[in-house]
């Protein structure tokens, strides 16, 4: 058990050492929460039942991934991932728009 915890600490918190003591654990909690959020959205994606649900789920996954990207930027203390988040925010919705339009009208460029 203690070995498990040590391993957790090593693999999860080692990269966070530059963060403040509260932020360090908050970051861990936030990452866990976002991971669960992503897992739940993924579950909805697998589950459906309607095609709209899967689009909605994928849209949610994109937004949550955006947040995870920002979090990883803080974790790795780098701003090089910022643009990924920017692009998801600016253009990620197009996928949703196109899929929704496809479902509604078939032809998406009419």
């Amino acid at each position, binding site marked *: 058990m203690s070995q498990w915890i040590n391993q957790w600490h090593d693999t999860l918190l080692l990269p966070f050492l530059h963060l403040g003591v509260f932020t360090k654990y908050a970051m861990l909690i936030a*990452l866990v929460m976002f991971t669960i959020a992503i897992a739940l959205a993924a579950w909805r994606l697998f589950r459906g039942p309607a095609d709209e649900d899967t689009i909605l789920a994928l849209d949610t996954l994109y937004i949550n991934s955006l947040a995870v990207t920002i979090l990883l930027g803080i974790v790795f203390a780098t701003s090089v991932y910022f643009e990924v988040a920017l692009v998801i925010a600016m253009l990620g919705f197009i996928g949703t728009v196109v899929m929704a339009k496809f479902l509604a009208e078939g032809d998406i460029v009419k």
Partner: protein
Amino acid sequence: MTQPTLLVLMLLLPIIGALALLAVDNRNRALAIGIAGGVTIAACALLAMLATNVFDGNVARFRADWLPSLNVAFSLRLDGLGFLFASLILGIGALVVLYGAYYLSNDDPPARFFAFLLFFMGAMLGVVLSDNLILLVVFWELTSLSSFLLIGFWRHREDARQGARMALTVTGAGGLALLAGVLLIGHVVGSYDLDAVFAAKATLQESALFTPILILILLGAFTKSAQFPFHFWLPRAMAAPTPVSAYLHSATMVKAGVFLLARMYPALGDNDTWFWIVSTTGLATLLLGAVVAIFQHDLKGLLAYSTISHLGLITLLFGLDSPLAVVAGVFHIINHAVFKASLFMAAGIIDHETGSRDMRQLNGLWKTMPITATLAMVACAAMAGVPLANGFLSKEMFFAEALAVDAHRLLSIATPIAATIAAIASVAYSLRFIHDVFFNGEPVGLTKTPHEPPRIMRVPVEILVVLCLVVGIFPAFTIGPLLAIAAQATLNVTPAGLPVYSLAIWHGVNLPLMMSAIALVGGVSLYVVLQKKINLHTVAKLPGDAKVLFDVLIENLVVVASAITRTTQNASLQRYLLLIILTAIAAGAAGFWLSPSTNSIAVRPQPANLLVTIFALIGMAAAIGTVFMHRERFNALMLLGLTGLIIALTFIYFSAPDLALTQVLVEVVSIILMMLALNFLPKLSVKETNHFRRYRDMVIAAVAGLGVSWIVYAVLTRPFNSISPYFLRTTVPEGGGANAVNVIIVDFRGFDTLGEIAVLGMAGLIVAVLLRGISIAKSPADGAFEAKAPENARPSLLLSIISSILLPITIMVSIYFYLRGHNLPGGGFIAGLIFAIGIILQYVALGREKVEAQLPMNYGKWIGWGLLAAGLTGVGSFVVGFPFLTSAFQYFKLPVVEAVPIASAMFFDLGVFLCVIGGTMLALATLAKVSSTRSAP
């Protein structure tokens, strides 16, 4: 002219003539005949100019550099044997040209005929003049090819086409065997030159490869000379025009086989294997040909089998493996050529003037064609071996040699007996030729009224018949010297080494003479008996015709080949892909299988944390989900999108921001593409009924996946040394950018990128090739793109407004990414994709037609400008003397602004930017246009 020049000119003349004839109009008969005749006579003259030299016992040679890889030159030699054959080829050739000039009807294209004929003449000359074996093979196969063309000359006739193919197949196959044998000789001897091969006789015959070599060479000889069991093609070759039969299939080409025996005798002869194979083959052929000939109804068929028989005789003589027999063989080559050619010509005349070659129709022609009859009768006498004709002399020598066989018990008895039987048969069929055609009652059902041919058409026959007699009566004066030099060359001996033989009609009463007498009496009796008892006319086709066997063989071959092709190439992509994947699995496994396994894992694996594991599991589940949902395409695409998202997160986690950016952008564009395409496709894949196939594929896929995993794991647990630290060290000082990935893309490996943008540009072009101007007439049955609620197709206000605001923003963001790429994630590709997405968004929000009307853009040109920009950056470095794509960067000091770095790589990246926009937009716009065409009523 020097001797070598004369020699090569003699060979080239017919070939040049053939080429010239190709250009001659077939209506210009006189010109065609003139060229053919002129060439032949000129070649004859050249041969004559060379004659004295050869008769002096010298060998004329020509040598030109040709195939240094094989150490083979274009080398010709004219020795006695070659001279003999060259005389036959050119002499009889001249007569055949003359004969053919009258033989051909007005419908036959003369230029083509004589072109082929001269082509053959050149090839055949090449065979007999070659000074090395490779060259000999070359000309050998050319004779097969020209024979194929000549047999098929009357191409509208099925039997001609079949006969041509059969001859080509059999002699071509023999030629390939010959080639193999020759190559092995070259391997053993180290040279293909005849002299070297002769000199290496001992080495050759002691080599382990000798038996295969001998068999291969003999296969070549036997097929060409129609030896049993390869004889069947020759009768079928009679579909050729008669001049061809006279020339190729009696006088010359079929003699190439026995020529080869003679040629190779010094190197391959003089041993038991040679003796047994050659003599028994010759013997069998001799008997078979002679007996079957009697029962032919077709004049040319009779002559063909007779030819087979005589070729067997010559082969047998070479097989007997004694110098005297070889001399007899050479002698018979001459004699047979002369009388058989004349007989074929006679048969041709008969055919020409009566319209038939069937002896059941032809009767009593003596009355209408007395001169031709006389000529034919003399030639037949020669064929039958009647004294005073040339055939008699060589047959006598043959009988003597047959009796001389004593080394081998069985053959020493069999040979003389077989020789006698064959001689009896040959008398019988010769008699049948004379009796059945010129006498034996009245013609039956002829379409033409028989009469003598034009005077000149008979001339060649007359010349040959006179030759038969002259040689038959004064052999020593006429043929003696030629025979001597030919035999000498064949045996590869000096004049002194020649065995003692006598060319005289009368050798006293001896056993051979007795045999001749028996043959004459027996032959006449046999024919009389056969005519009386069973009436030869009623004999149907002889059973066991090898031709039928051959046809069956070829048909079966084609059936088998088709079956193989059909089963392997069943036009099933799934099958092909399965094979490729299985091969790849085998290839991957082969490395581990063939290389001794070493499990020294030198790198300690790092533990994976739970969150990463969860993400990985979601990704794997999404991939597997895509598989399980694949029939419901839309859902499968959603799961695929999730997989792609996880891939992007993977890139982020493992330090690849550029890849993550690219992945996300490509995902967005891909989903648009997929939606555009899916609109025209069924939304549901047809359910699979073949469960075996599914499970099989699952197993294969699993195995492949495990293999990939295994390899990845193996690599990741091995230490790594790479060239990459170089990039990290030089990217800033020499590449001028902090983003090593981008500097690699636009500079270190900018050349890859050049290719990559070409591919992306082409993707757009290809989509245009596929779908430009395509409209869909009717909705297919499987429910693809059924109309959806058209009544409510109002564009969304919210979407339109947000899109119009986003367009300038995306363009600005795109420029931002373009400018910063060298130092931070971004660059031309990413910028291009963002730009393109910005425009696509307008298509989605406002509709294609409106966007294209208000923002007309020729995306093909964008691709062109992009390629041009990239290419100009490349050649720009020439100016300063550096190689293609050498980047330069400078800091420029501008007013207000501090120093800004301008790298030439940015101009290159501009090319990338333009190409990406052009390629992506061309693909998307073309697909979009298809949809719009469809929605029109």
